[in-house]
């Protein structure tokens, strides 16, 4: 961990008693008087679950709160002693990008899709400097090299959709730091990125920070990232800072229950105890599965994208098979082919020994019931216009169960997933994210499937909720002996729930075996890279200690 440079003068950012309420007739508090301080060259992590007020804090600092929804009602935000809350709109505009900058979670949506990225960086110079357009271009090119973008000339004229996620975030960083601001606010800047990209971006932020002396307010929900990047940590909960301290102190000796809960909920990278096989019955077999997307065009040669190449997987009753990999590796393609949501190009898919890859629509009907899916985002996978009961009973009724039996069953399932039976008449928006995912699980189970396909089913949830949902899946698996095909990019989650793990890269399964072997003793270079890139890998969070015989905390010494 780099030593924070302690300056004698005023801190770069000092927030005092900041209170934010929703505007409107009945204001509700969002931030309840938070205070924090960031010194020169220091990285402070604001960590907390969704809704804790992390992003509101950062937007209030930048003066970017949506005026119609939120209003600051008291407090001070001092940037090098200047109160931003009392600054005029014109002054705030001047300060942005010159003294304080911000980078955001999703670089794809944070960049304007119809302007070239080079131009978007240049705009900062247009707004804040008197440089000639040639000088501007020169400076932008230099900055783009500074953030280690390759082939700067080409990328300068590219549009966001032509770049990779990591490249886009580098563009955002170049844009934010080109005028050397004192303060960089990074709002979950790596959450939408793959782990290996995440590691590179964190490293880049570290590097530029020490070079330019920037102070960083880093917002994250991920304790692993905290361990890797923070000098100091503020833990937020319900609009308050509940605990503050050095990274080491927070991770080793958390004083508050809430902080302890957060740390205990972080899934460990060490795989679960191997479970005994209860059944030899192969419930789902995927043999030599190939999926090729091809675009036909009259004028261009046929372009082919191989999304899955000779994939072989086998799942036994009551077991969990994890498919892990980065975005674009083909893991979702395999799952969708297994369900025949998309048509495989070749290969075979057997459900309980029956070949289904070549069945017609109507012949497939009875097999649909046997594989059910849980999706990533329960806010979007449940129809907002249907009641919970309608959502759950729709499937069974379609397969011939009487309405009253289906409702009785739905009630039973709701109780099983930990929701009150009266939830049946309510609508999805009346539930929290975790509860909605429970409803989605109940819906899948209502079909009495042999296989559950969970596509990033806990990725959108907070860690504490994530842990509960994983436990629930485990219980339900015991009870119904259902097999689970678990797709995730998160190795920690995979380690917690999977019996077997298949690692995918570029459409191929490159390593496949028991979770214990794959995650503890990886054979392939790529698997090792993935494991190595997992943030906070040097820490055993639930036990408040660094892992023995590993790299020391919070540094990038590779």
């Amino acid at each position, binding site marked *: 961990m780099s030593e924070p440079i302690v300056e004698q003068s005023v801190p770069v950012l000092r927030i005092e008693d900041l209170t934010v309420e929703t505007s409107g007739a009945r204001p509700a508090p969002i931030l309840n008087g938070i205070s924090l301080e960031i010194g020169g060259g220091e990285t402070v992590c604001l960590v907390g679950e969704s809704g804790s007020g992390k992003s509101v804090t950062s937007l209030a600092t*930048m003066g*970017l709160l949506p005026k*119609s929804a939120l209003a600051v009602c008291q407090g001070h935000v001092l940037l090098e002693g200047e109160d931003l809350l009392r600054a005029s709109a014109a002054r*705030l*505009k*001047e*300060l*942005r*990008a*010159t003294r304080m*900058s*911000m980078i*955001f979670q*999703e670089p794809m*949506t*944070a*960049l*304007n*899709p*119809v*302007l070239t990225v080079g131009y978007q960086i240049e*705009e*900062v110079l247009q*707004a*804040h400097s008197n440089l000639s357009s040639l000088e501007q271009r020169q400076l932008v090119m230099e900055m783009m090299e500074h953030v280690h973008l390759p082939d700067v000339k080409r990328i300068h004229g590219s*549009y966001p*959709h032509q770049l990779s996620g990591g490249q886009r975030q580098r563009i*955002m960083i170049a*844009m934010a730091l080109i005028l050397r601001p004192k303060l960089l606010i990074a709002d979950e800047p790596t959450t939408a990125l793959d782990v290996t990209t995440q590691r590179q971006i964190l490293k880049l932020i570290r590097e530029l920070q020490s070079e330019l002396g920037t102070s960083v307010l880093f917002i994250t929900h991920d304790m692993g990232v905290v361990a890797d990047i923070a000098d100091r940590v503020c833990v937020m909960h319900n609009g308050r800072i509940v605990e503050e301290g050095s990274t080491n102190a927070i991770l080793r000796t958390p004083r508050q229950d809430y902080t302890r809960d957060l740390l205990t909920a972080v899934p460990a990278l060490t795989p679960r105890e191997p479970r005994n096989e209860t059944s030899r019955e192969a419930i789902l077999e995927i043999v030599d599965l190939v999926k090729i997307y091809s675009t036909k*065009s*009259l*004028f*261009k040669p046929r372009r082919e994208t191989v999304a899955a190449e000779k994939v072989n997987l086998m799942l036994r009753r009551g077991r969990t098979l994890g498919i892990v990999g980065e975005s674009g590796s083909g893991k979702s393609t395999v799952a969708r082919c297994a369900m025949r949501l998309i048509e495989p190009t070749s290969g075979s898919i057997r459900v309980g020994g029956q070949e289904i890859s070549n069945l017609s629509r109507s012949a497939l009907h009875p097999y649909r019931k046997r594989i059910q899916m849980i999706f990533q985002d329960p806010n979007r996978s449940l129809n907002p216009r249907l009641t919970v009961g309608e959502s759950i009973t729709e499937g069974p009724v379609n397969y011939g169960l009487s309405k009253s039996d289906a409702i009785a069953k739905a009630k039973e399932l709701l109780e099983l997933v930990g929701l009150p039976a009266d939830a049946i008449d309510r609508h999805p928006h009346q539930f929290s994210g975790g509860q909605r995912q429970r409803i989605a699980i109940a819906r899948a189970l209502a079909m009495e499937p042999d296989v559950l396909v969970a596509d990033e089913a806990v990725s959108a949830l907070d860690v504490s909720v994530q842990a509960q949902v994983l436990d629930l899946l485990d219980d339900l698996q015991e009870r119904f002996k259902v097999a689970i095909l678990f797709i995730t990019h998160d190795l920690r989650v995979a380690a917690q729930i999977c019996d077997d793990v298949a690692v995918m890269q570029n459409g191929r399964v490159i390593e496949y075996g028991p979770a214990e072997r794959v995650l503890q003793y990886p054979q392939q270079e790529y698997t090792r890279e993935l494991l190595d890139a997992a943030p906070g890998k040097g820490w055993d969070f639930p036990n408040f200690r660094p892992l023995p015989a590993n790299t020391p905390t919070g540094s990038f010494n590779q």
Partner: protein
Amino acid sequence: MFGYFLRRILAAIPVMAVVALFVFLLLRLTPGDPAAIIAGDMATPEQLERIRVTLGLHQPIHVQFITWVQRLLSGDFGVSLLSNKPVTTLISQRLEPTISLALLTIFLTIIISVPMGVLAAWRHGSWIDNMVMSASVLGFSIPVFVIGYILIQIFALNLGLLPVQGFTSISKGVVPFLERAILPALTLASIYIALIARMTRAAMLDVLGEDYVRTARAKGLDEKIVLFRHALRNAAVPILTVIGTGFALMISGVVVTESVFNIPGLGRLTVDAILARDYPVIQGLILFTSGIYVLINLLIDLSYAFLDPRIRY
């Protein structure tokens, strides 16, 4: 980009072919003897025979179709039964008033409605927004001819600022042209202003919630630049679609306005041709307006590629 253009242009060909077939069948498939329909109830057998020969109706239908298409391709749309002038001449004579009126209308629509919509979205929920929305309800609900007569009453009769009716070609000067064209253009524009102001507002409201607008603000950019360079360009595709279809509809929908303001344009030609059952002229007009439709849609498709780089595949 070139491939995209070429594909769009090629796709327009079958559309025109279907329209041509439809127009051809229009007369031939009407029940009864087409010549009798054209000639009306009082026709003598000689007149009927003359019409049959003029239109080639005595030949078998496929021969008729082939001759007809051949003529079309060489630019021959037939001869008016009423005036004996070629249909192409009739259309081109009436083209200028209609096209210049339509262009002026579109111009007025864009410069009024787009800023209105942007402003309403920017100050969402404020009195400006409410005004724009009320004005657009008004624009939607008052019939075109009522607006036309109200405008004439105020500006031409009460204030005496502008002439009541008629048309002056733009070749005789911009001011005389505008004097006569501004009221009909405003009349025609009212409904499009209402429609496009609403469209712009809705599209801008969506875009203003996007992350890249927040990024643009976080860069310290001027609000004008945020609104027009960052937001409006992204909202432009749906707005442009409506403007394009609106324009195409307008060409075929000028009948009422041209009647109210007594303008010798395509709309009047259409009315006259229908009343006189002048089939060659009707066919020519349908073909012509469909051609304009297809052309405008083509232009819209092509302009998407300029606005949004993701479409240039």
